[in-house]
């Protein structure tokens, strides 16, 4: 058992009265006041999240783009400078080691953000796959703090942060899944219009030593825009409504990308990439679907999905009473035969069968 890790924002969370939870070895704020209030603030105004536990890697060198095409499931070499792309790091057997976001900083310079709990596995895989290529992958996680500002007011809030300056792209012109460089009090800041909530928002990568000051400045700028500090509980309910998978729930070493609906993330016609040989799931492999139900009783991770006669055909991976929609929602892996239109499915909620309707993901989509 290793000691729990804390982010550079620990004191901020403590001052706000956060409850902490273990997440991938990190002590992270799960909530400050109320899960629901924090969730709603992000949908209606804005929330600030500490996501400094996530891991960052640089990939640099003349062969960086070629290397990423081999190391990851997507085709990263075609991405323009200034863009970000969701991708998957696969094992040789086609299972998912992690889901990552890749940012192209320069022709031969990329940044990868991965999940905290997979940091070591991602680091090992990235190192191993460099082979003889002219590329170096480096874990730079400890050098950075990462702050997410999410919600319809996030652009207005960040534009009002005094210390942020020298943007390479004006706020209003920053596109979704793209990044801009800037400075925070004269030091480099990376602004990415990405997030994990289904709302407009940004993720701010800053030197670890400056994270607390940036947090404070964003909080001040957000005072008149309804900004609240939001914890992991709200982050989880927001991402579930947005139909975004969570590693450990929807994604794992045992899941092939196509099962999770990520067939399109895999560029199978690439010459070679790790996992290519076994990336196609078995024909009877369970597939991820969305389910909605009536009432207020939610199916939760681990609960069975059953047919009318009680036959178990799947399992819920994430489930909650949707705060925004007001009814239960769930993601579940089910047998392909039961994923077809017209199959009557039920959530087995502690022995009670609750009728569920197959629903296309995401459950919630923000108004543009």
């Amino acid at each position, binding site marked *: 058992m290793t000691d729990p890790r804390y982010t550079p924002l620990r004191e901020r969370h403590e001052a706000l009265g956060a409850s902490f939870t273990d997440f991938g070895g990190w002590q992270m704020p799960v*909530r400050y006041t*109320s*899960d*629901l209030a924090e969730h709603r603030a992000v949908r209606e105004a804005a929330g600030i999240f500490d996501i400094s536990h996530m891991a960052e890697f640089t990939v640099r060198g003349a062969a960086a783009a070629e290397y990423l095409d081999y190391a990851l499931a997507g085709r990263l070499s075609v991405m323009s400078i200034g863009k970000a792309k969701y991708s998957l790091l696969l094992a040789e057997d086609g299972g998912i080691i992690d889901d990552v976001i890749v940012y192209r900083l320069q022709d031969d310079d990329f940044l990868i953000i991965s999940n905290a709990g997979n940091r070591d596995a991602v680091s090992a895989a990235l190192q191993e796959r460099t082979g003889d290529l002219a590329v170096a992958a480096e874990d730079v996680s400890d050098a950075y703090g990462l702050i997410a500002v999410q919600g319809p007011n996030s652009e207005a809030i960040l534009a009002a942060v005094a210390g942020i300056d020298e943007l390479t792209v004006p706020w209003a012109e920053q596109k979704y899944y793209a990044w801009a460089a800037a400075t925070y009090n004269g030091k480099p800041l990376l602004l990415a219009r990405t997030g994990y909530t289904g709302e407009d928002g940004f993720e701010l990568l800053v030197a670890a030593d400056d994270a607390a000051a940036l947090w404070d400045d964003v909080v001040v700028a957000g005072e008149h825009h309804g900004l609240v500090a939001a914890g992991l*509980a709200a982050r989880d*309910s927001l991402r579930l409504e947005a139909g975004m998978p969570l590693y450990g729930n929807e994604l794992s070493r045992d899941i092939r990308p196509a099962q999770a609906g990520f067939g399109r993330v895999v560029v199978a016609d690439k010459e070679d990439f790790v996992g290519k040989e076994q990336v196609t799931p078995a024909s009877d492999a369970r597939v991820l679907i969305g389910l909605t139900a009536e009432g*207020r*009783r*939610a199916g*939760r991770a681990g609960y069975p999905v059953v047919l009318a006669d009680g036959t178990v055909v799947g399992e819920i991976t994430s489930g*909650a*009473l949707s*705060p925004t929609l007001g009814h239960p929602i769930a993601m579940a892996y089910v047998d392909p035969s039961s994923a077809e239109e017209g199959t009557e499915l039920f959530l087995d909620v*502690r022995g009670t069968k609750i009728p569920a309707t197959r629903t296309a993901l995401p459950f919630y989509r923000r108004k543009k």
Partner: protein
Amino acid sequence: MTDLNSLKYSEEHEWVATDGAVATIGITDFAADALGDIVFVELPEVGTELSRGDVFGEAESTKSVSELYAPVTGKVVEINDAVVDDPALVNSSPFEGAWLIKVEIADGALDGLLDRDGYVAITEA
């Protein structure tokens, strides 16, 4: 405002107020805080006979499910529909608006419950 010292408490974080033979039962603020935002409450039918320790319902929060344990033995004579309709009452008003059930108690059924000091002591343990 309920005088919290006038209530009895179970180690499972229920409170009991008595008026003659009728006990009003709810869950404490400590339990409500620990559960987080309550989003679903299931209560028994009126007329259900409960023995002390029986599961009489569920309180479901955004992140967890907790069973509710009868702190007394007796028959359910009333349930609080307001809490079923608006489970958030448990968070906002655990000792007032969010009482859960009323039970006609059998003789001696309050034996073994804690007083306020005894209950606070276990929450601080």
